[in-house]
C-alpha cells in the first residue's frame, strides 16, 4: 500500500502521540479502508477489526498505564477517534462507546474493583456497551424504570434498555438502573457481564446509517448481578452517567469532525479531477467557495472539541464545552456532508462514492449521546448558573 500524506496537520503534545497517530493511520489504511463500504452495505459488524485495534492498544487509550491503558490525554485519544471516523464512523463510534463504557469503573470503581476488571476491559479483547436510554426515557434519562432489587449478594434486575450500541455483542454493559424511587438520586450503576443469565438482546434496529454497528434493546429478566459490581455507591448512578456522557460527547464530536473531514477529502479529490466546460470544476468559484466553507467549518469544529478536551486534561470543568462541541461538530458534519454530496452531484447520491454514507452517518451524530436540543439545554443551564 502506498504511504499517504495525512490530510490534517495535527498539533500533538508528544512524540509518542505522533507515533500513535501514525499507527492509527496505518490501521485505517490497511484494516478499515478496504472493508468499510462493503461491511456497511451488507450490515456486517467488524468484530475482528475491534480485536485488531485492541491488540494495537486503541481500546484503552485514556486510561492509566498501570491497568494496561495507554495513559494518553483526552486530546490525543479523541484525535485517534477522529482519524478512524474519516473512513468508518461505525468503528470510530464503537471505540468511543467502548471507552465510555469503561469510564464508570475507571473513575468511580474501588481500587479492588479496578484491579480485578479494568485490565481485561481495556486490554483489547473485550468490547463494552453503555445502557442508559429506555424506550420511554431518552432525553429525560432520569425517568428510567429498569429496576434493581437487592437480594442477598446480588441485585435482581428487570426492565428494558434501548438504543444500545454493541447490544448483544458486548462483553460487558455499564448499566444504569433504578435502586430506589428517589428520582435522579435513585439510580445506580452496575457493571454487568455480557453472559449474565436473564440478559438478552432484541432484534437489531434497522438504521439509516451506521449499519456496521449493532444497535439493539437489552432485556433484563430477573438478571442477577453480583452486588460487588456496583460502581460507586447506590444512588450515585445518575452522576456517574452524566460524568461519563461529558467524555462521550467529546467522542461523538471527534467522530463528527472525522466524518466531515472524510467528506471534504472525497469532495476535494473529485472536484480536482472532474472536468466540465473544459476545466476542473474546483476552478469554478461557486464550487471553490463551497469547499472553502466546508474546510473552515471543520477547522473551527476541531478547535472547539480539542479546547474542551484540553480543559478536561487540565482538570478544569468541561461539561459546557463538551456540550457545545457535540452540538457544533455534529451540526457542522451534517452541513459539510450534505455539501459534499452536492459537490459530487449525481455521483454523490449513489453508493459508488462514500459521501452519501457520510451524510447518513452525520445525521445520527446529531441525535446520539444527547440530542442537539438537549445539548442546548445543558449549555443554557450552565449559562444561567454562571458555570
Amino acid at each position: 500500500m502506498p504511504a499517504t500524506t495525512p490530510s490534517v496537520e495535527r498539533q500533538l503534545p508528544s512524540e509518542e502521540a505522533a507515533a500513535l497517530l501514525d499507527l492509527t493511520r496505518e490501521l485505517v489504511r490497511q484494516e478499515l479502508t478496504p472493508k468499510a463500504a462493503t461491511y456497511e452495505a451488507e450490515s456486517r459488524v467488524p468484530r475482528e477489526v475491534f480485536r485488531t485495534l485492541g491488540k494495537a492498544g486503541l481500546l484503552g487509550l485514556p486510561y492509566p498505564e498501570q491497568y494496561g491503558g495507554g495513559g494518553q490525554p483526552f486530546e490525543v485519544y479523541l484525535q485517534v477517534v477522529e482519524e478512524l471516523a474519516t473512513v468508518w464512523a461505525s468503528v470510530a463510534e464503537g471505540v468511543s462507546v467502548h471507552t465510555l463504557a469503561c469510564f464508570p469503573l475507571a473513575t468511580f470503581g474501588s481500587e479492588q474493583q479496578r484491579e480485578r476488571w479494568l485490565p481485561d476491559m481495556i486490554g483489547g479483547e473485550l468490547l463494552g456497551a453503555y445502557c442508559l436510554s429506555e424506550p420511554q426515557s431518552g432525553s429525560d434519562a432520569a425517568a428510567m424504570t429498569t429496576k434493581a432489587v437487592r437480594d442477598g449478594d446480588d441485585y435482581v434486575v428487570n426492565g428494558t434498555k434501548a438504543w444500545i450500541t454493541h447490544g448483544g455483542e458486548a462483553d460487558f454493559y455499564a448499566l444504569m438502573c433504578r435502586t430506589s424511587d428517589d428520582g435522579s438520586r435513585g439510580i445506580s450503576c452496575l457493571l454487568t457481564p455480557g453472559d449474565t443469565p436473564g440478559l438478552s438482546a432484541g432484534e437489531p434496529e434497522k438504521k439509516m446509517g451506521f449499519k456496521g454497528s449493532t444497535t439493539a434493546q437489552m432485556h433484563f429478566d430477573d438478571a442477577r448481578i453480583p452486588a460487588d459490581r456496583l460502581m460507586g455507591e447506590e444512588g450515585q448512578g445518575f452522576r456517574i452517567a452524566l460524568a461519563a456522557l461529558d467524555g462521550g460527547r467529546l467522542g461523538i464530536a471527534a467522530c463528527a469532525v472525522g466524518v466531515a473531514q472524510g467528506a471534504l477529502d472525497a469532495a476535494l479529490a473529485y472536484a480536482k479531477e472532474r472536468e466540465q466546460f473544459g476545466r476542473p470544476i474546483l476552478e469554478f468559484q461557486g464550487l471553490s467557495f463551497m469547499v472553502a466553507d466546508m474546510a473552515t467549518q471543520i477547522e473551527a469544529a476541531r478547535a472547539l472539541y480539542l479546547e474542551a478536551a484540553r480543559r478536561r486534561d487540565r482538570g478544569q470543568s468541561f461539561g459546557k464545552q463538551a456540550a457545545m462541541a457535540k452540538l457544533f461538530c455534529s451540526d457542522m458534519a451534517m452541513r459539510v456532508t450534505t455539501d459534499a454530496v452536492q459537490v459530487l452531484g449525481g455521483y454523490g447520491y449513489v453508493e459508488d462514492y462514500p459521501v452519501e454514507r457520510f451524510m447518513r452517518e452525520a445525521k445520527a451524530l446529531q441525535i446520539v449521546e444527547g440530542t442537539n436540543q438537549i445539548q442546548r439545554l445543558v449549555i443554557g443551564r450552565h449559562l444561567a448558573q454562571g458555570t
Partner: protein
Amino acid sequence: MNIVVCVKQVPDTWSEKRLNDEDNTLDRAATDPVMNEMDEYAVEEALRIKEMHGGEVTVLCMGPDAATETVRKSLSMGVDKAIHVLDEGLHGSDALATSLVLSAALGTLADSGGFDLVVLGSESSDARMSVVPAMLAERLGLPQLTFAKEVSIDAADGGGGTVTIKRLTDDGYQVIEASLPAVVSVVEKINEPRYPSFKGIMAAKKKPVDTKSLADLGVESADVGLGGAWSAVESFETAPPRQAGTIVTDEGDGASKLAEFLASKKFI
C-alpha cells in the same frame, strides 16, 4: 532459542523505482522507504517461535541511515534488540557482499551466546534475487532451508535440536529437516504479520541498537560496495509504456481469432 532475523529496507513496493544517473544504483531518495514486506513475515515467524520456545530475537539490518525506521519497526513488533550495519562503503553492494557482511555480523554474536536460527524473507521486493539466504548459509557453513511456508522447531535441552520446514515448490511442498543452528527463509504464506502495538512502539525506543561499521566486523571495504560488486549496471532505460490491447470483434469467428492470437504469442 536465540533467533536472528535479517531485514532490509526497500523502496515502497508500490512506487515507481528509478536509478541514479551517476552510478546506476537505485535512487533511494526518490521513493518512500519501507521495510521489505517479506521480512515482516520473517520477523513474525521469529516472534512466534520465541513465544513458543522462549529465548531472544535479534534483528540484523544492513543499510543506510534511513534504515533505522525498519529497525525500529521490527523492535516495535516485539523484537528484543538490533544490530544495524551502517557504513558509507556499503553503497552499491551486491548479493555476495551482502551475504559476506551479514555472516560477519552473525560471527560477532559468538561472544554473546551465538544463535540457533537465522530467519530471512525469501526475497526483497527491490532486487528480487532470492539468493542471499542460500549464500549466507554457505558462508556460515550451516544447513539452508529455503521458501518455508511452515516452520516447526524441536528444541533439545541445553541447545541444539532440529528445525523442520515445509518448503514451497511449484507443485506442492517438500518436508525438510535439519539440525540447529540453521538458516531458514520464509514465504508470505507462512503467517499474518502483527501490527506494532502502541506499547510496542513506546518500548522500542528503549531497546538496544548496536550500530556496527565494516571495520567493527573486520570486513575489507574492497570486498563490498560498488567497487567490490561482481557485476555492474552499464546502462538502463525505463520500461516502455504498455501498448494498447488488441480488440477482437466477434463476427462468428471470435473463437478462432482468439486462438490465432494466443498461438501468435506462443501461449498455445
